[in-house]
């Protein structure tokens, strides 16, 4: 088990390393040198050289990379060009904001999706099942900007139940913050509900048709016990993995939602960085997002193996 976790961490580190190389090369491979790209075509060569020297972008690539990654490990990702502030500070604040939004979305969608999936599986082929499956699927294909705009128009503009922006006034209470975050969370919930309920449904159905559920039923165990102990325990395992893997989607979804609801999160920040050609911010942001993704996958794997004796207890003893 420890070995498994260690190996998993090792793999995550290797992935992150490769990601860092890719990101670094990506920001370097664009045409022209960094100084020229920042200052534009009409700046004098001297000014460009000067900026390059200040940014350190006149050195060999490998040295630059070493410098960057060395700093990154210590939490220093350089300075943002457009905001003239340390990248790590900007990212830290944005990450906190995004995490709040993501947590609100997950807290709503995970119980809902799992419950919906279980109900659909238990009522397979019946109207409940169709409603959940078809409804979930339709919700998944609605792009966030469409559902987002509709939500803003209906609930913020017409009904005025929720604020139209996700950013609460500074120092707001928990309730106020929550009030601001519910509306932006809904487009994410709509998309994720379909995925999570579908995976849950498939897992529950597979377990229901398994030989061990047959054994349990033919032993004479009451149906609720069979469902709770035999079906759910084994069926929810794959769901955990899926929920974690949706963190990747979430980041893409966040960009749209955060821009739409004018919210200072990581998606919004990356969006701005890309628009303004702010390379240190962009590179640092992608790296941090990659790390967040790896950590959530790692946690999912650990949770999965804690629940799965096949991994927890190992082979034949």
């Amino acid at each position, binding site marked *: 088990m420890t070995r498994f976790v260690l190996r998993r961490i090792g793999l995550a580190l290797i992935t992150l390393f490769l990601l860092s190389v890719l990101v670094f090369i990506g920001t370097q491979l664009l045409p022209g040198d960094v100084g020229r790209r920042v200052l534009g075509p009409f700046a004098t060569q001297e000014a460009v050289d000067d900026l390059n020297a200040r940014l350190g972008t006149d050195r060999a690539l490998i040295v630059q990379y070493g410098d960057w990654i060395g700093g990154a490990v210590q939490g220093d990702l350089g300075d943002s060009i457009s905001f003239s502030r340390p990248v790590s500070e900007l990212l830290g604040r944005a990450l906190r904001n995004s995490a709040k939004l993501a947590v609100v979305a997950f807290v709503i969608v995970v119980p809902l999706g799992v419950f919906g999936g279980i109900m659909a599986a238990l009522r*397979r082929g019946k109207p409940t099942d169709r409603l959940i499956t078809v409804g979930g699927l339709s919700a998944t294909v609605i792009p966030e900007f469409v559902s987002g705009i509709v939500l803003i128009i209906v609930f913020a503009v017409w009904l005025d139940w929720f604020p139209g922006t996700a950013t609460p006034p500074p120092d707001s209470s928990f309730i106020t913050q929550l009030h601001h975050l519910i509306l932006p969370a809904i487009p994410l919930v709509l998309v994720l509900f379909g995925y999570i309920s579908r995976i849950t449904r498939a897992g529950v159905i597979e377990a229901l048709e*398994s*030989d*061990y559920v047959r054994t349990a039923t*033919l032993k004479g165990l009451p149906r609720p016990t069979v469902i709770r102990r035999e079906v759910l325990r084994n069926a929810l395992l794959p769901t955990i993995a899926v929920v974690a893997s949706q963190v990747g989607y979430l980041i893409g979804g966040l960009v749209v939602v955060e821009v739409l609801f004018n919210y200072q999160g990581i998606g919004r920040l990356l969006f701005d960085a890309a628009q303004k050609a702010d390379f240190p911010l962009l590179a640092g942001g992608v790296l941090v997002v990659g790390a967040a993704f790896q950590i959530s996958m790692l946690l999912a794997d650990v949770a999965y193996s804690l629940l799965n004796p096949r991994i927890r207890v190992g*082979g034949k003893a």
Partner: protein
Amino acid sequence: MVTTTDQLLTVENLGIEYKVGTEWKKAVRDVSFSIGSGESLGLVGESGCGKTTVAMAIMHYLPRNGRVSEGSIQLAGREIGELSASELRRMRVNQVSMVYQDPGKSLNPSIRIGRQVADVFELMEVPKDEWDGRVIDILRKVQIADPERVVRRYPHQLSGGMLQRVVIAMAIASEPELLVLDEPTTGLDATVEAEVLDLISNLRAETGTSVLFISHSLAVIRKMCDRVGVLYAGRLLAEGPAEAIFTDPRHPYTVGLLRSLPTGELSRNEAQLDTIPGTLPPLGAEIQGCIYADRCPIVQDVCREEEPDLVALDGNRFSRCFFPERAPDLPRVVAPDPPVRQRSEETLLDISATSKTFEQEGSPVFALKDVDLSIRIGETVALVGESGSGKSTLAKVILGIHVPDEGAVIQLGEDVLHDSLHSRSGEEIRSVQMVFQNPDSALNRRHSVRRIIGRAVQRLRGLGRRGSHDRARDLLSEVRMGHQHLTAKPSHLSGGLKQRVAIARAFAGSPALVVLDEPTSALDVSVQAAIINLLAELQAEENVAYLFISHDLNVVRYVADRVAVMYLGRLMEVGTAERIFRGPHHPYSEALLSAAPDREEGTRIRLKGEIPAASDPPPGCSFQTRCHRKIGEICETVEPPLTEAEPGYSIRCHIPIDELAALQQLVPQE
């Protein structure tokens, strides 16, 4: 059939349907039988004839798309379909239990064994403080050696044989009146199968439980049952006392099944096996007249017009045939004359002092140890031994999939030792081919038969597209398949046809040696017979050698020229088939042979414990921990060498061959 009130289970005119697409199709029709208390009834029949369907209807656990469309099932006088949910539950707790195939899947993977067994006592309302003791007792009763340890295990930590014992323990814990067993030993080793069957017989003798025993193995049914019903396409074709059904069958189908089995001393050099032509009609087919008419060698006009009733014959037997008296003299379908073979003494492949060790979680696993074996041109060598004995590893070394650590594999005089598959020459790859047990996983389901065989031809023969298609067509007729199958996908073919395609593919490059890994064990007996005949014909035509891996000793005896017995990666005994089966035997082979279900009662040798892990072989002779003929310390300290005790016969044992003969009470050879 008369149904009296003292019957425990009465099934009358049972019809069962499955919904496929939007249509209900009949899978079982008009099946009637009954089981008296303490009686055991067997159901036999080819795959898909409805055995499991009947069993599941009795348990009231048909698949979601299945339903009982007519008839009645009564257990102890109560109609099963009319029970309320809680009555049904009570019935499952107290009166009827079931055990089925694949014990690895029938226990919950995430709950400890002890807890799963304790459920039964909880449901029986045994006081909680007695559960632990009762669990240990019942596990001991099914001969689990160390129950205190086993209860703390998870299913994946136990072997298949152990798991099946646990499942049986759960089934008998409540002392049910009826035990339904659906292929409880299919997929287990012969030695384990024999033990599980013994266990069931003993428990039955002790508790007087009635049994419904389902199997496609005629030998197992014969051993376990008082009465037998023969099912075909969802219909009962014959029913009667087991002895009578097997020794004096009165239905052409029963006769056909029995003739397909290689039994006794028969060798393929003496006669071909008879088979049943054709295949089972598809699910729900509406057939006028006798359902078996299309495959029956004595079919008459009347058979196609009306369906015969299940008529009573003498000796409490029933047969659904107009001409039951003609069944014993059924004409053969396959001419008995075996194909003429060319035999050669020239060695094709020589394996000497070959070992293979794998690494598993840091510790070595000795999969092959010091193996010497040669295969001659055009010869069939059979490899037998329990699962985990290294048969497949040896096959893979020969195929070049594994590279041995030491020793040499010499093929036609050329040393191919440190050659992995990639560095072997085209000629070497072409000359050794393989056919697997399960054709489903071996054939690409998306490709047509033409493409599957054609590609092998292109790869092995270097032929172009056109040439390869012509050759594919030829190969298909060589495996006796029609050209109409060229465009079919494997998923549309029956198991036997798929295996023929796999064989055709193996023969695409005119190989010198084909490794056959359990090629017939997933097939019905009639299909098995046809495949075995086909392999014999191909061998005679192409002078190819076979390495035939099988656990069915009757099949081995029939097909093999020579036999090699493996245990824990070592060869224990090698000799001609005739010699290996005649004896004197290696103690391990003796035990293996005695485990076959068609052996006489009471002659079985019980092996102690389970096969040791290959990562932790015992010191001295690898078989000493389980050997019933162990002579003393020498067995525990010194590993005996494989020595040539007689010309062409080698054995790895400390006991001299004449002493073995005396121990095994055989007349010594002159």
